[in-house]
């Protein structure tokens, strides 16, 4: 894996270091566009490697001359799994992200300076975090690309008690969404289930309300046309549009929530949308 490993950075947020695994990937040699860095935020039960590395996103962005910042969410990938619930809350994660991108060199948008600001690409849960990050950091975030987005976080309706019963004694889970998400989490032996359940619990404490804080920067919403988790994408788009932002939507033909992410159509659209 190329990239500079910045785990030695020592800035703490709220007095604690969340030990998130951060990498900065420099543009492919000779391609540097001089544009602002791109922050990638992966989905639930995924990781930088699965969501962005194996799918070709990092190499695509690097080849497009972009500097890329990746971070594994707490309890995911190579990040540690903190024991305290607070480390998993979306608000705390947003604070950590702010510190990480600042350490990686992102600076507030300045008119006429293409190197200033930060573009953010999220997928699924990462899109929710990106939406909120954009809404709360209007001076920093330049543009957003949200993949597989949903106006309500499916994790908020996750039946935590049923999941814990299932894990304890195998009692079947009635709620289909909960059962599906848990199955997805269990498929990867490397996943830390305790950490993932902590994340869900923390998210339930701070459910997604897109209307509460709406990002005003231009955004591109992308989902597979078979993505059942993103059927509310048009509603999200209209929330953003009502708030005055420029919103584009793209449906990837034939793709669903789990396989839209590799799509060339998605990547090409994102690179073009952010390449200004």
């Amino acid at each position, binding site marked *: 894996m190329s990239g500079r490993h910045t785990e030695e950075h020592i800035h703490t947020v709220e007095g604690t270091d969340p030990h998130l695994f951060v990498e900065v990937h420099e543009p492919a040699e000779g391609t540097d566009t001089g544009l602002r860095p791109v922050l990638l935020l992966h989905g639930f039960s995924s990781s930088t490697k699965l969501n962005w590395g194996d799918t070709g996103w990092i*190499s695509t962005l690097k080849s497009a001359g972009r500097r890329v910042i990746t971070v594994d969410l707490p309890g995911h990938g190579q990040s540690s799994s903190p024991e305290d619930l607070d480390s998993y809350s979306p608000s705390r994660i947003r604070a950590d992200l702010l510190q990480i991108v600042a350490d990686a060199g992102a600076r507030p948008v300045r008119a006429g300076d293409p190197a200033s600001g930060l573009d953010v690409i999220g997928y699924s849960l990462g899109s929710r975090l990106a939406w909120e990050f954009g809404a709360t950091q209007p001076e920093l975030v330049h543009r957003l690309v949200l993949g597989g987005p949903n106006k309500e976080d499916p994790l908020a309706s996750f039946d935590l008690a049923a999941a814990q019963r299932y894990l304890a004694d195998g009692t079947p889970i009635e709620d289909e969404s909960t059962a599906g998400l848990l199955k997805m989490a269990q498929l*990867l032996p490397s996943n830390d289930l305790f950490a993932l359940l902590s994340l869900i619990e923390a998210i339930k404490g701070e459910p997604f309300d897109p209307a509460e804080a709406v990002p005003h920067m231009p955004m591109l919403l992308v989902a597979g046309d078979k993505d059942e988790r993103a059927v509310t994408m048009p509603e999200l788009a209209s929330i953003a549009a009502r708030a005055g932002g420029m919103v584009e939507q793209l449906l990837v033909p034939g793709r669903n929530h*789990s*396989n*839209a992410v590799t*799509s*060339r159509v998605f990547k090409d659209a994102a690179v073009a949308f952010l390449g200004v």
Partner: protein
Amino acid sequence: MAEISFPLPDLGEGLIEATVLDWLVSPGDQVERNQPLVELETSKSALELPSPQAGKVIRIHGAPGETINVGEPLVVFEVPDNTAGIVGTVPQDDAPKRRVRLSAVLDED
């Protein structure tokens, strides 16, 4: 020219098959090592498979939506079978060129 078949590799964590989402190359394309070849989906994730080597693609296996088992042929490359080692070039046997002519009277004793 030699053909080198690249079978579907083990994509990790005990997966035995993958479904083709989309091919990013076509037969006849010259690809570089690490260039994305194909989008695949497994039961766990979707991914882009980079080319293990440089060469010309001559066959691809599996239309979008089809499933391929680990170990089955995925793509066949054509590579020159006379590449030099780590240094140097492969010499060509050109038609012999001469300036000198033999002019001798052989005394056959």
